[in-house]
């Protein structure tokens, strides 16, 4: 419980820092802290695969991409008016509403799931077997989608290069 409290505090602090800090790169680094905190929470729940994949994908790749995007775009300086936008109240309401819906769904779903006496022990091998066996079709569809997105990105980049000549 103490460990959970520390990790939760770390994650929430990272998330809050990501929206409150004035320097955009600091925000990106704070997001990385929040991702790492989430990964540690997954590990705390014995979800090794989710935890390590979280670090590998989010800390290793997504945070880096965010940082690159910040550095390669102009006007990433914070405006003099501060980081709070004028419509922060509406944003807060929407965020709270989304959180409420998600929390409600999670709490309700507890009744629908079969009650298990012991914690299920899910190993990485089981996840692999499930992905390659029962869920192979969704996996392939996601793969096709990602490939299509990648090809699209390459085409967008190539077009710009061609017109510049």
């Amino acid at each position, binding site marked *: 419980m103490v460990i959970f409290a520390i990790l939760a505090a770390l994650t929430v602090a990272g998330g809050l820092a990501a929206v409150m800090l004035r*320097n955009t790169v600091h925000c990106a680094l704070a997001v990385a802290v929040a991702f790492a905190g989430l990964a540690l929470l997954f590990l705390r729940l014995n979800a090794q695969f989710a935890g*390590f994949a979280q*670090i590998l994908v989010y800390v*290793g790749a997504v945070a880096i991409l965010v*940082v*690159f995007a910040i550095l390669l775009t102009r006007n990433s300086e914070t405006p003099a008016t501060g980081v709070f936008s004028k419509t922060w109240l509406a944003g807060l309401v929407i965020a709270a509403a989304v959180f409420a819906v998600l929390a409600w769904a999670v709490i309700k779903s507890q009744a629908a799931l079969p009650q298990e006496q012991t914690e299920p022990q899910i190993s990485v091998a089981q996840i692999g077997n499930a992905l390659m066996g029962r869920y192979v079709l969704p996996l392939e569809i996601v793969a096709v989608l990602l490939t299509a997105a990648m090809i699209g990105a390459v085409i967008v980049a190539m077009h710009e290069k061609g017109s510049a000549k």
Partner: protein
Amino acid sequence: MTNTLDQIFVLLKHWIIGFLPVWLQPIVAALLSVVAILAVFPGLFAISVLLERKGLGRMQNRIGPNRVGPLGVLQPVADGIKALIKEDVIPYSADHVVHFLAPVMLVVVVFMGYAVLPMGRNMTFVPMDAGLLFYFAMGASAELTVFMAGWSSRNKYSLLGAMRAVAQMISYEVPLLMSSVVIVMMTGSLSLDKIVEVQNQYTWGLPHWFVFTPMGFAAFVMFAIAATAETNRSPFDLPEGESELVAGYFTEYSGFKFAEFFLGEYVAMLSISGLGATLFLGGWSAPLAILNVVPSWFWFFAKIMTWICFYIWMRGTFPRLRQDQLMNFAWKFVLPMTLLNLLVAGLWRFMGEGFLRWVVCSAILLSAYIIGGRIGMRSKKFGPRSYRYAE
């Protein structure tokens, strides 16, 4: 006797924690392993720095360090003392917190990787089911620290070096993972202990190392290339190309922080060599069945040091690549070849035991490399060397 020598470190650990009360034992056991890792690998770091400076000296027809101690063997000690007592300069406009955190975090994540490496029989610190995944997760975190170092220095050279380093590390991480996946496909496990177990078998006294299978060998070559790029070693050391970027992302670091980057780089090299040895060269297993009398940990460290010598040899031999060559090589050659390798590994799995699969898999890989190489050479239109001078 052989067995005792093989397990000497494990027995030593059990002997030490035997003196302690039961509730303290797990903590002290973990602490002892951590201390051992933190003592051994910086020691190897010192040895490899000395080897590198001496070896490079030989390759470049000079003597190398020879003043401190007999034949200059105490040079790393002198370097360490120098780094400790140097002034720690922080640029005025640097981002102090991030500037301080970057080297510390780099060293932390680099050392974390050792937690899952099997350094001998029963000598894995954390025998984890998803060990390989853990290792790569830690390797991926190192990229962020490199960026932090370059960005927080507020120096154009640092930032350029960091951008180069991050782009290179992300690009070569893909083939690094893909070439390791071949091994995972062949063993059916992400646990590094299991991977070594599978390789620790002998036919006619010869080991079942994965490097001796067709796709294992191809993956080994690709892994070695990607590992060199991942640790920013020559010929892939553009991020710290002295002639262009002063020292890359750690230009603005001095004193002990610089030493931390230096340590981080070499410890990462040692660790990725350890991973390569574990995946392809049988980890702690002996190269011949009769050599099993030699303790298992000796083989692991011997393989690491062989790999380091290979790195030094490459650094003394190859010129540095250009940035576009580096990227083209990663995405247009190494990645397709590792993907092909995955297909071949699947074929190997489904062709069953026998002689035929050796012929078919070798033929596919060989023809792919030969045809790919021929086409690549032809499209480059290599002719007699020509020189262009600045007017």
